[in-house]
């Protein structure tokens, strides 16, 4: 019985000890992780085109490997070999969607004992029907930079974290802007993927 209790305790402890999780995929070079923003279909309300770009850019830049390149007119919904961030209708509750569009499973590397396959194309779409906001004020909108930072955590190969307060923690309360900045756990997760290039 004592052993059972010990295992149960270990089980509970494991989720908080492990923190970040990995998705088994990574970008093999920073050049491949360049994303192109299609702002042509952005939200009509409350946030300008330049603000959209700066908020999304901040979310991308939070993770060192990824960057925002030139603008594009391509759709973020298609498998076309280009990493696109775009806007579209995604329904009444979906704020952002990440598509792992293409992964090359014939190429892999090992880092810190973890196996990673090669990302070829990832696309991200945000819902243009929502009210997005830029500042940390709480006015009934959604934090574009915070959501972008979380989504791009997945884009660089992270899964969810069990550490409450981490950007990659999968639940955020209303008016919580903490996901804009990376926690130690987020950084540890990133380093677990990219400390060996």
């Amino acid at each position: 019985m004592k052993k059972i209790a010990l295992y149960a305790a270990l089980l509970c402890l494991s989720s908080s000890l492990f923190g970040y999780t990995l998705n088994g995929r990574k970008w093999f070079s920073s050049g491949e992780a360049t994303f192109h923003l299609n702002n042509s279909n952005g939200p009509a309300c409350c946030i300008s085109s330049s603000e959209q770009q700066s908020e999304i850019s901040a979310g991308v830049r939070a993770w060192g490997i990824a960057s925002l390149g030139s603008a594009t007119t391509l759709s973020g919904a298609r498998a076309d070999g280009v990493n696109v961030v775009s806007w579209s209708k995604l329904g009444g509750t979906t704020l952002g969607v990440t598509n792992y569009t293409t992964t090359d499973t014939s190429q892999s590397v090992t880092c810190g004992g973890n196996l990673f396959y090669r990302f070829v194309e990832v696309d991200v779409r945000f819902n243009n029907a929502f009210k997005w906001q830029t500042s940390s004020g709480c006015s009934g909108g959604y934090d574009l930079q915070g959501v972008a930072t979380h989504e791009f955590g997945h884009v660089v190969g992270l899964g969810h974290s069990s550490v409450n307060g981490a950007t990659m923690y999968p639940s955020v309360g209303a008016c919580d802007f903490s996901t804009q900045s990376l926690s130690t756990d987020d950084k540890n997760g990133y380093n677990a993927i990219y400390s060996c290039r």
Partner: protein
Amino acid sequence: MRKSFVLALMGLVLAAAVASATTVAYVPMKRAVQMSELVLIGYVMGTEAVYDREGQIVTRIDLLVETPLKGGAGRGEIFSFYAWGGHLDGYNVETVGEAHYKTGQKVLVQLENIEGDYHTLGLAFGKWDVVRDPAGKPWITRNLEDLNMVGVTEAPVEQLPLDHMLRVVREAARLAN
């Protein structure tokens, strides 16, 4: 035996942690029903990856409707809706956080119309598996682990008796009238 069970459970937890997400705005049960144009119980008759009008790969799900709880679909009708992503022409597009369907599965789905096509409300958020407990009582369960939820005001419901959902649907209908 117990030791094996606990170790197996730990393994499951670790495996389940390898997941990723799409972000949805959290809505409580009743609000989610109100936002759903259709709420249907039925059997998945088949799935097929196709291109939608934008040229993206989506998976069409054909559902044999057993019990229409809300909306215009009829009992015995094959109702089709779509999930983002799928395997087609050598591409395997994975929309993280999207619901997964298997032929023969009994499901309860909450559907919304997006640009003329029906999708589950909030991807995996709107898809429930219909199961029975050892006593034969029907329950519905959903898998939210791949979703990032924003604006969470309560612990999201992941399983409940089917009867409870029927009450929620009736209450939402009463409020709408």
